[in-house]
């Protein structure tokens, strides 16, 4: 009898443990349906409501950038008050408020159309946009779909473009489906989705040892709308800041992240800096804290965040405060180590 009680006790604790584990760390969302869908009882019927559904689930009225709906942890892309610390994609707070259009993508449901661009992505080149539909500047920028970044860009409706992905098998991240693409960035059905390694906390509390790992494939996603910025020429002199090239292993770049010393026996290896991340040709199984000049790759996200940042041009730093020749640190000087001195 005593053994049975102990056994039942263990079973009970195990069940309790399972119940308490929050879900949704980039994996299949499965828990209390009402936590998400209860917000919109007619969600399926209101599918044409589109972008606002994405925004509402991934927004927060307080400063936390990860919220829990039921047992599911939901990454926040838009805090209506100043976020404690934006996630890796940035936070639309900075474009939604009165900080100006230059600090973020003007996503529908968060802010109005960009006053200067009038809906046209800078550097847009139809030839580089793989979407059959193409970007339509007459329509607002959306989270997903042909006028957005996530999901299938061959589908016009943003909600439909990511339909089912939150409940689909999303491992391995081999780009074979939208769900199996890094952060649901698939471009179109015929194009291999973006590969990568997703940080369980979407970059919250990131460090050199804990962060997303980016594939240079993510540049192709940016290129779809900003094609002219993505140079096809892979040799200098550069006419636009290059992406998709290896961080040079010579010159100033060999000293990437100069504030962090290297190990005496591995002088060629630098320490990863989440302030200017690099891409990897091969995505590691776990986040690497090393940067290998000559091998690791400069990507769009080395300088920019995706959603919105406190700085103009959605940069990771205040470009206006980057001054050469005055012993500056951080920002551009993480890579351009010789120009800060």
């Amino acid at each position: 009898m005593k053994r049975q009680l102990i056994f039942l006790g263990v079973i009970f604790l195990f069940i309790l443990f399972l119940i308490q584990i929050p879900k949704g760390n980039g994996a299949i969302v499965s828990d209390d349906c009402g936590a998400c869908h209860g917000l919109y009882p007619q969600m399926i019927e209101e599918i044409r409501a589109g972008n606002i559904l994405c925004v509402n689930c991934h927004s927060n009225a307080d400063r936390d950038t990860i919220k829990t709906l039921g047992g599911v942890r939901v990454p926040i892309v838009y805090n209506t008050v100043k976020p404690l610390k934006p996630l890796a994609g940035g936070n639309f707070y900075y474009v939604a408020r009165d900080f100006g259009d230059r600090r973020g993508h003007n996503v529908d449901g968060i802010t109005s159309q960009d006053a200067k661009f009038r809906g046209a992505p800078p550097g847009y080149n139809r030839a580089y946009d793989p979407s059959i539909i193409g970007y339509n500047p007459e329509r607002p920028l959306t989270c997903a779909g042909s006028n957005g970044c996530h999901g299938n860009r061959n589908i016009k409706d943003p909600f439909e473009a990511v339909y089912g992905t939150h409940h689909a098998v999303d491992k391995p991240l081999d780009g074979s489906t939208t769900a199996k693409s890094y952060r649901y960035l698939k471009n179109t059905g015929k194009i291999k989705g973006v590969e990568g390694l997703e940080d369980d906390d979407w970059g919250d509390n990131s460090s050199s040892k804990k962060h997303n790992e980016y594939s240079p494939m993510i540049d192709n996603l940016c290129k779809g709308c900003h094609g002219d910025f993505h140079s096809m020429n892979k040799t200098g002199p550069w006419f636009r800041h290059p992406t998709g090239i290896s961080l040079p292993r010579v010159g100033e770049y060999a000293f990437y992240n100069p504030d962090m010393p290297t190990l005496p026996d591995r002088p060629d290896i630098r320490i990863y800096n989440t302030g200017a991340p690099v891409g990897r040709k091969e995505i590691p199984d776990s986040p690497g804290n090393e940067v290998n000049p000559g091998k690791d790759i400069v990507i769009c996200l080395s300088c920019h965040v995706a959603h919105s940042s406190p700085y103009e041009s959605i940069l990771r730093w205040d470009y206006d405060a980057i001054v050469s020749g005055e012993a500056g640190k951080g920002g551009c000087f993480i890579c351009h180590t010789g120009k800060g001195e």
Partner: protein
Amino acid sequence: MSYRKRGIVEKVMATVTTPVSVTCSGYVRKPNDVADRRNRHRDRNHFTFILLYAICSLLFATVVDARVKGKCKDCHSMHYSYEGKEMTYGDRPGPFPVLTQGGCLGCHGQNPAGAENIITIGKARIPQVLHHMENGDLAAGNFYYVADGYNPDYSKGHNVSGISLQESPPMNTPPSFIGSVIIPGGIGPVEWPGQQQLTCAGTWGCHGDRTVEDPYKAIYGAHHADDSLIDGSTVGRSYRFLYGIKGKEHRDWEYQATVSSHNGYKGSIAHDTMDTISYLCGECHARFHPHPNLGGTVEVGYSTLWLRHPSEIAFSTVHGGYAGSEYQDYIRYSLEAPVAYINPTGGEEVVDENSIIMCLSCHRTHASPYPNILRWDYEKTSIGDITKEGCLTCHTRKGQ
């Protein structure tokens, strides 16, 4: 060294004028005019501090102006885009190399019709090679005199791409060009193609590494390099980014230069070095230079019979000797007809027998108000001119 020798002990007898206090750590805070054993280390610290300050000041003084300072955005455009639109500079469309805002001229020829010869953007002071400031021409001259759209006279300057159209033959190639001459870093071009226009830098230009054809690659990184030492070892460490050339750079590019503060041009009368300003000219105008790598004495002649006006010679080497020569009367440095020195400092005021005639004694480099890029109007220079200007600065007796 004892403290007595350093004159510190003498302070012991000084009068105490303010109270002495003792800190918790036992350190005696005393007025500055009192010294004793307990405070010797403070004097020592003061001495060390002053020494360190002096060293740092010297280091800082050499580094502070060493490289371009300023916001990246003042010179560069990361994506050739601003506010969703492409940026053009004048009528020149981009994008421009090395992410610059308008290439070389985007920074150094920002406003051809403007009245600024040095433009300050943020902390960066940018010399203008093309402007319309009255009496504002810098040491190299001003491309305004040959710039298309501004009533150009192509005889007055180098026809640099982006400023002027290429000249017609035979002036479409450098006069007195010799192929495959030895230049710093390698060999110059085998020939100068007739359709090849002059560029600011690179193989077909003056600045940067002339063994590299692309102008922007040729000068890559120089603006951000430590150029506190001009030893010609790199483009950044070369006089005015003229690879391999040494000299002393005047802080304001000779704007409002004085006899005691000017560019210091390097010369050599041995003709065994490539680090002189005249050698740079000779890389393209080889037959005008007596260096054996270039035209040599065969083309230029020698002291008893010059075939072309000599350069890279000292007054001491003139025919008949310096003593008693007309050159002996050129005694004070002239900004109109400057001379070179073996080890220039930019502060030379005296001209003597060791001073060296160079190409820039007579010519500017970019463009000037006068034909042949001369520093003066050759047409108006005549024997007997009592002003003794122009040619007569050196040829003093011909003005009599």
